[in-house]
Every structure is written in C-alpha cells, then in structure tokens.
C-alpha cells in the first residue's frame, strides 16, 4: 500500500479538527439552551460521540448557574405533592434546608 503524502495527512488532520471543533461548538451551544432544546439535540447524537469531547467539563460550565455559595437562596413557594401545604423557603428561616432537585427519568 502506498504511503499517503504529507499533504494528504495534513488535509485529513485539518478536516478532522474542523469537524471536532464544529461538534464542540454545537454541543456547547446546546448545553446552554433550555433543557427541552438540549434534549432534542442530544437525542440525535450517538453515545460514542460523547467520548470525543470533554463533556463533563463543558456541562459544568454550561450549568454553573447564577446562584453561588454565599448568595441568598432564591425564595420560592411551591405546593407539596399531597397538596397539604405550600412550602415557602423564606418561612423556613431558623433551620437549615436541604433541597434535592430531580425527576424520575
């Protein structure tokens, strides 16, 4: 088999780099969209593709949020699942509060 020329190797490397960079930009953009939009992009991305990106680092940066340690926790008033009461964070002053955000899937 003939050894590829130096020019061919460079062209292939540049093409791969451009493809990787474009993919990186796309995923980074998607991560900064609302969750539904992010999911609609990611549903078309094959799982092995995740391994060519620093996915966790990008994710941590994209989802860093505005509330930081030391800030006043944003107040909310939400119903309990059994509708027996409304929980207002500011009304819980005087005791520490743990909030576990999540869903089923």
């Amino acid at each position, binding site marked *: 088999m003939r050894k590829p020329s130096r020019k061919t190797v460079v062209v292939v490397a540049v093409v791969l780099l451009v493809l990787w960079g474009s993919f990186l930009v796309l995923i980074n953009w998607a991560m900064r969209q609302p969750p539904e939009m992010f999911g609609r992009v*990611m*549903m078309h991305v094959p799982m092995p593709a995740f391994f060519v990106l620093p996915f966790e680092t990008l994710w*941590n940066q994209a989802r860093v949020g505005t509330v930081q340690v030391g*800030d006043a926790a944003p107040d909310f008033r939400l119903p*309990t*699942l059994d509708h027996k009461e409304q929980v207002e964070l500011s009304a819980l002053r005087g005791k520490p509060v743990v909030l*576990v955000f*999540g*869903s089923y*899937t």
Partner: protein
Amino acid sequence: MAFYAVYILEAHPTDIWTMQSNVKDNVLFASPKNDQERENVANACVRKLGIKFPAIVDGFDNTTEKAYTGWPDRLYLISSDGKVLYKSKPGPFGFKPDQLEGAIKKLPEVRAAK
C-alpha cells in the same frame, strides 16, 4: 433540619431523549403536558424511588428550576439564615450525596449537637 425533594421537569422523557437505562428499567414517561400530568409522574417518582422526605413540585413554568439551575438534578444546602452553603455541580456527574453529607456535618447546628 428540613429536607425537600424538588420535583422538576423530566431529564429523559420518551418523546425527547430516552436513555437505554430507562428502557431497561421500564422508567418510561412522556413529557408531562400540564400540571396534573407533572404531578402524576412526580407521584410515581416518589412512590417507586421510596423518597421519604416531603416532595414539592415546581410549577410548569419551571421558575424554581431556572432560579437554581436544578436540571437534571442538583443538591443544595441552605443555612438557617437563608444563604447557600453548598451547591453541587450539575447532575448526573456532580450529584454527590457524600459531599452534601460533609457540608451538613460542618453546620454549627450539627456540630453543637455532638
């Protein structure tokens, strides 16, 4: 100390981005279309996962999730005077209960009780 599970929008509903792990475990829910459907999924979540502390449900406008950047899952510890003491990195990678436990152990209220 108070613990609350804040139920927010689904991470991997069947109509958007289904994970094979959810298919395998038969945890298959389409995106809720209204508050009642969201509550139905939240009820299933609490019941099947055996969540023992109170669950509160974010509104369909996701206001609380947006304020806390809680999606897909995240842990917070709020001090008794309303300040954020601990905020995990975003899940799934950053959802680390052991880190939360460490932060809880540093609370003055917990240290004083020892």
